[in-house]
């Protein structure tokens, strides 16, 4: 987590400044990108969609409380909606993050543009030519 804090240049004393600095420290809210987001994109990967075809369109995190260093959380992702707009394919992915007591701590909602599968697009173009 201190590497994340350093990467975004955050010096808030509430966050760990080094690997040893954990006493009483909490995670930055946007650290949810690490513990919540992959559950949503994981749902897409398990549906056979490669990460290189995904473009992040919108993101919302809702936090119930701050996470303390050392807590274990579980993130459950799901594909909430699939729709087409202006001939583009969109997916809404959601994730709910719960603490060890089963209480919700964070919720994620992502809108993702899914680019066409290059192999399928090439096959489609070949068919049209034939």
């Amino acid at each position, binding site marked *: 987590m201190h*590497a*994340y804090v*350093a*990467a*975004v*240049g*955050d010096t*808030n004393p*509430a*966050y760990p400044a080094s690997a040893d600095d954990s006493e009483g420290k*909490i995670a*930055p*809210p*946007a650290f949810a*990108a*690490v513990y919540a*987001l*992959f559950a949503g994109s994981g749902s897409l990967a398990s549906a056979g969609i490669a*990460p*290189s075809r995904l473009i*992040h*369109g*919108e*993101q*919302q*995190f*809702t*936090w119930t*409380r*701050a996470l303390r260093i050392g807590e274990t959380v579980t993130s459950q992702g799901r594909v909430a909606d699939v729709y087409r707009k202006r001939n583009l394919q969109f997916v809404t992915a959601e994730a709910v993050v719960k603490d060890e007591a089963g209480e919700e701590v964070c919720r994620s*909602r992502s809108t993702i543009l899914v680019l066409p599968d290059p192999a399928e697009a090439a096959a489609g173009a070949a068919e049209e030519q034939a």
Partner: protein
Amino acid sequence: MSSGAGTTLKVGEEVLDLEVTHTREQVKAYADASGDQNPIHQDDEVARAVGLPGVIAHGMLNYGLLSRAVTDWLGDPGRLRRLSVRFSTMVQPGDTVTCRGTVASVDEAAGTAVLSVSMQNQRGEKVLSHGEAEIAL
């Protein structure tokens, strides 16, 4: 500009004050820290092969910077309840981004306020648009 800590907020008041110039080192550091090792953020050739002008910063790095701008202003990061954005323009190393915000509404009874927030680049293009941050008063 007031601090977000312990002051009475007025609708329309300007908040947030953060300017960051992106570097390849920062994008690499974010990739390592977040686990998002998609090569379009680190390898110019891969990025160009999928039609990008070169490597681009992670959208979630910019989300993290906007979140930092809000919590810098709040002081206590636990007061940030919700942050939503639309990713509108890509950011490349060398670009300078600025976070801006105004107080959109205050609900004294509920003890919350909503900030209208955004990030723009040095050309004035919105990098993060349609941004809303809900905070505890």
